[in-house]
């Protein structure tokens, strides 16, 4: 199989979909023809030879790092809780920087100790973005569907727009967007240059009845786009984003307990089928020319 077959350079896998050591995950992702990978902090800190060895393994894989996840419950805290979270954020930024990764994902706070006031959230996200500037890292702020104050993307966009930092934008996770039934019309209000990452996942149920079921589904029962019952919605989302001008990366954010107990190449092939479906059937791309080079100014911010 050639990696030049298919046109899905902007689609990547996430290490959370695969079992086993980091090196095996990277090899399986590469073998399936992907050029990028989304990493989680525990891929680094859980490495048997230490996090620097994990960074070396990622560099050796040749895969580009789509983004680094995830900073949780950062915004809205005060006093010692805020100081503590700033320290956590700095550690994550340092690992992200060591990977030459240009994107840190931060998801909206679920903490009951956090303020709900917009000014407090805006101020904290400004500070997080400022911490990221010297390291050339962008912050993608994602509305977690069970976030306490911010749980739908239009709210996240309000906060990002108020914070008005050049390196602070939105991260989308299709699972959370569908779980809350947020209308796609709202996307019209968003500046596509401020959308820094789109994570895609399908799931098997038609309807999610409670927040508890939503959390369980999100963490254990996701499938690759095209494998669940929301394929048409995913296709509509991707087409809409493309039409609005989004040209950034798509990452498969697929948490699935079954995938963690079948061979890595099998899972990676499923991801590849999903990427081919989105790239060629949904976005109707032609196969790229060989030796294509990517120039500066890829429409990304």
């Amino acid at each position, binding site marked *: 199989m050639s990696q030049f077959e298919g046109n899905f350079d902007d689609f990547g896998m996430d290490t959370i979909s695969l079992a086993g050591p980091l090196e095996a995950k990277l090899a399986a992702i590469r073998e399936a023809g992907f050029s990028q990978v989304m990493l989680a902090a525990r891929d680094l800190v859980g490495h048997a030879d230490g996090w620097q060895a994990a960074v070396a393994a990622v560099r050796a894989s040749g895969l580009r790092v789509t983004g680094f996840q995830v900073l949780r419950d950062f915004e809205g805290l005060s006093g010692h809780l805020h100081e503590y979270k700033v320290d956590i954020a700095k550690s994550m930024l340092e690992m992200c920087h060591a990977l030459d990764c240009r994107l840190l994902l931060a998801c909206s706070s679920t903490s009951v100790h956090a303020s709900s006031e917009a000014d407090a959230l805006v*101020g904290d996200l*400004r*500070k997080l973005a400022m911490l990221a500037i*010297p390291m050339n890292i962008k912050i993608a702020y994602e509305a977690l569907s069970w976030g306490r104050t911010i749980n739908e993307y239009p709210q996240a966009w309000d906060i990002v727009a108020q914070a008005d930092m050049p*390196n602070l934008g939105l991260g989308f996770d299709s699972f959370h967007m569908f779980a809350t039934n947020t209308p796609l019309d709202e996307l019209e209000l968003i500046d596509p240059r401020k959308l820094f990452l789109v994570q895609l996942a399908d799931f098997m149920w038609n309807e999610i009845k409670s927040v508890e079921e939503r959390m369980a589904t999100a963490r254990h029962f996701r499938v690759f786009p095209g494998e669940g019952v929301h394929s048409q919605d995913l296709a509509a989302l991707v087409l809409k984003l493309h039409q609005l001008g989004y040209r950034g990366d798509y990452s498969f954010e697929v948490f699935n307990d079954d995938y963690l107990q079948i061979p890595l190449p099998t899972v990676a092939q499923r991801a590849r089928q999903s990427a081919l479906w989105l790239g060629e059937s949904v976005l109707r791309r032609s196969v790229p020319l060989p030796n294509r080079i990517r*120039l*500066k*100014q890829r429409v990304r911010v």
Partner: protein
Amino acid sequence: MSPRQTTAAERESVDEGSNPLGLDGIEFIEYATSKPQALGQVLERMGFRPISRHRSREVLLYRQGDINVIVNAHSSGSALTEQPVINAIALRVRDAGAAYRRALERGAWAVPARVEVMELNIPAIHGAGTSRIYLVDRYQEFSIYDVDFTPIPTVDPHPPAVAGLHFFGIVQYIGNDRTEDWNEFYATLFGFQAVPDAQRFGILPKGRILQSPCHGFFLQLIEPEPGVLDIDDDECLQRIGLGAPDVPAATEALRARGVEFVAVVGDPAELRGALTRTAMGSVTFELVHNLRAA
């Protein structure tokens, strides 16, 4: 829910004025190199004089007029390179402690201090690349050099500047699409403001120019040439800009001292700027026509 403590600024959006830190120019610029003597020769040709030595480290202070340049050859963990790099700017502020805390509150990274006994603890934050930004409030009655440095005997501690040279600014090389990021960094932490694109100084009119809130100096942010493959995203402080009231006279005086110039554009009699030939692979100075009010 526990009540969140709000600062006065959050409640009332108190206007801190356009110069929130009381910024008042550049106290010094620091080079790091493993070849301090070679760099010293370059500086002396430019009119600087060695004034004093650090008490505990291999660090030398050079001066002309009110321009202080520090040459740091003290290897502290990170390996020094032969090619000098500008590894610090020191900004004069009203209250260094307050300015430091304000910067950290807004998301600056603190640089851990490594202070020997009886030395000053000068607060610093991380800047571009591996450089740092020091905050100094002792520059009027006392100076930081009185404490940390020993004067070199028989040397005039205040040598006059060649042809009225003074600090004009710093050129910073930045990565692709990084202009807005660094603009925000300097605006939020220190109150710098972008000057209109039509307003340019010197001979190299590229990039974005930020003016200090004290109106005393400028930062120029320069991205790689468009169309260049997206590879080189290294960022650094690239060169010092020196103001001169009469650029032709300054270039003449410096040529007489052995300084070579490149890129001297326009009628020599009406020269607005000039660039010295790069020494030691990285050291160059830009002269800019500037009549300083002071």
